[in-house]
């Protein structure tokens, strides 16, 4: 064999081995991401099609920057906020379409249902929309990542800030289902721990539209702060009607879970001065602005924390697949947990053993209409809540994976 021919054969063999190696580790030759979200219901603006767009942006950027040797595909579906639809879809995706990770999953019930299927089938679950803490406590498992935020962080941000700034007496307006109760419980604990007092609560049917009766009750309690332990249209209607009935500004409102889409829908007039906690604000740094403007060009709305978190988590997942050289769940989970997250969404974010991604959160105050200079200029950042303070410490975890 001439040296030239030998070199050519060796090169071909090496290339074949390389491509074989890469192919062999990725099942079906491609990484398949399933975005399961609310595309038609009450959370479709804060997650929905924006979360799908964020996923596609993450994949495009990953291919452009990291030049992976594997193919990446996306499938999407509407879970309609129903646990049975979510778990059936996840099962179908995993069994028939070989989906490697099921992501987004706004609403706790759909998230918990899919976590069970994924554990049984050994696939990765990445959650950005759901808020409840049981996801990383009693219900935690080793294939799940809770990425963007949770009720503990929300309570710890808003309720703590408002209480320490003088809002000592509280009354809660709570959506009468699991999420509302969890948010009320977490927030009450923070209020009392910071020297405040909870005067009472009223539980309203979910979903509601007329909150005037409940607001009058809250008004007659004489509490300084009315904590809104609800979300979406319930929160926006309650805020609007609080202004109408003269509840505000004598008493102040604390929106315990609010997204920038809610503030946008209501406008600044009824929301001005409110405190809220978020994992992301588009106008915070050069990096966040640059990414958000790209998002805005396509979606015509600025991203919520769920959508920004979706981008960050998918990019991180794909990096982990590349680093592990495999889409095997345990290898990818190990790589995801080992690598810190550093992008426009989070600095030195870390996925803990209970599946919680811990990162800095932000306490923001909604601007007065006169202070808002350009479209979507809604928040003033009042404080950065460091990752270690924002989320429940591992020492308090009720996750069975955490050895005490």
């Amino acid at each position, binding site marked *: 064999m001439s040296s030239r021919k030998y070199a050519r054969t060796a090169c071909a063999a090496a290339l074949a081995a390389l491509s074989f190696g890469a192919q062999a580790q990725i099942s079906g030759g491609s990484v398949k991401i399933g975005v399961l979200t609310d595309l038609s219901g*009450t959370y479709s603006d804060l997650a929905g099609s924006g979360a799908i767009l964020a996923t596609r942006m993450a994949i495009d950027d990953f291919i452009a920057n990291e030049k992976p040797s594997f193919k990446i595909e996306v499938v999407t579906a509407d879970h309609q906020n129903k646990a049975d639809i979510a778990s059936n879809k996840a099962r179908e995706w995993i069994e028939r379409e070989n989906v490697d990770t099921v992501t987004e999953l706004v609403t706790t019930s759909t998230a918990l249902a899919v976590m069970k299927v994924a554990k049984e089938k050994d696939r990765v679950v990445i959650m950005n929309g759901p808020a409840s803490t049981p996801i990383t406590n009693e219900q935690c498992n080793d294939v799940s990542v809770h990425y963007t935020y949770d009720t503990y962080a929300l309570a710890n941000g808003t309720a703590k800030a408002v209480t320490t700034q003088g809002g000592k007496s509280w009354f809660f307006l709570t959506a009468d289902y699991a999420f509302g109760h969890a948010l009320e419980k977490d927030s009450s604990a923070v209020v009392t721990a910071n020297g405040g007092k909870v005067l009472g609560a009223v539980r309203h049917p979910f979903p509601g539209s007329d909150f005037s009766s409940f607001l009058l009750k809250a008004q*007659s309690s004489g509490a300084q702060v009315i904590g809104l332990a609800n979300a979406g249209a319930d929160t926006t209607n309650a805020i609007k009607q609080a202004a109408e009935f003269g509840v505000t500004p004598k008493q102040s409102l604390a929106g315990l879970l609010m997204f920038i889409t809610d503030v946008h829908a209501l406008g600044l007039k009824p929301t001005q001065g409110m405190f809220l906690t978020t994992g992301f604000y588009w106008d915070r740094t050069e990096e966040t602005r640059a990414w958000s403007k790209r998002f805005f060009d396509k979606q015509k709305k600025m991203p919520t924390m769920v959508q920004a978190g979706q981008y960050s988590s998918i990019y991180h997942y794909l990096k982990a697949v590349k680093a592990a050289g495999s889409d095997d769940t345990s290898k990818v989970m190990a790589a995801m947990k080992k690598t810190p997250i550093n992008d426009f969404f989070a600095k030195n974010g870390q996925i803990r053993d209970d599946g919680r991604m811990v990162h800095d959160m932000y306490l923001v105050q909604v601007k007065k209409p006169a202070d808002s200079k350009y479209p979507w200029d809604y928040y003033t950042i009042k404080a950065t809540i460091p990752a270690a303070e924002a989320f429940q410490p591992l020492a308090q975890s009720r996750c069975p994976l955490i050895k005490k």
Partner: protein
Amino acid sequence: MEIFGISTALLGSQLLVGLINGSFYAILSLGLAIIFGLLNIINFCHGAQYMMGAFVAWIALTRFGINYWVALIAAPLIVGVVGVLIERLMLRRLYKLDHLYGLLLTFGLALIFEGIFRDQFGISGESYEVPELLSGGVNLGFMFLPIYRGWVIIASLTVCFGTWYMIERTKLGAYLRAGTENSAMVQALGINVPLLITFTYGYGVALAAFAGVLAAPIFQVNPLMGSNLIIVVFAVVVIGGMGSIMGSILTGLGLGLIEGLTRVFYPEASSVVVFVIMVIVLLLRPAGLFGKS
């Protein structure tokens, strides 16, 4: 002073709020009752037509600068014309069939309308400001009453009783009633019954849209605002007696009050109290409180 541990001030304010909600129920159930009474159609897209009224007002204001007062007249007219088209092109073909077909058709239309608005405007809703003239409120001593809410009671009751008067006391109303009793006979007398029916449906739809414009400054203008309300309104119509005009008005107001009281004493039950009453009424008086058995 307190009654069962609840201050009279709180009780009074809740009753007033109940009356405000009741007037929404009254005007919406009135439209449904007219359509059912005269066309025998269970108009399941009434909620979507209410939502369209609110959206037309919002679009008129934000895109064309048309104010609330003009919208209060224009939006019901526009949505009413959509109703006329629905009646002419679709409902007309179903009168000879069982009224389940009408229900299914209008239910399908409701889903289509909601889908279109959701696709165009998203789900978070849009804000509609209270008109300048009606902003602010008055202190009644026991509560702070927003002037706009007071206006809602006056406007809806005026329209409700005006409608009742038109149907029960005028010549046009007499034709309408006669046309539904025996359309062949009335037609033989030279009255255009199909036109009367079209007018009736258009008017019922316009009532829903009118309620939608009234609701726009109170609630977020949202594609799902009608579907949240429509089931309660149907319960109101059933309790009042399907097709009974005065029954739907009085039942609407009464149930608003009962719902308000439930919110004071046991808030968790406030979303089901209307249905509990519906079950009891149906067991005791299957034709409803004001229905002809």
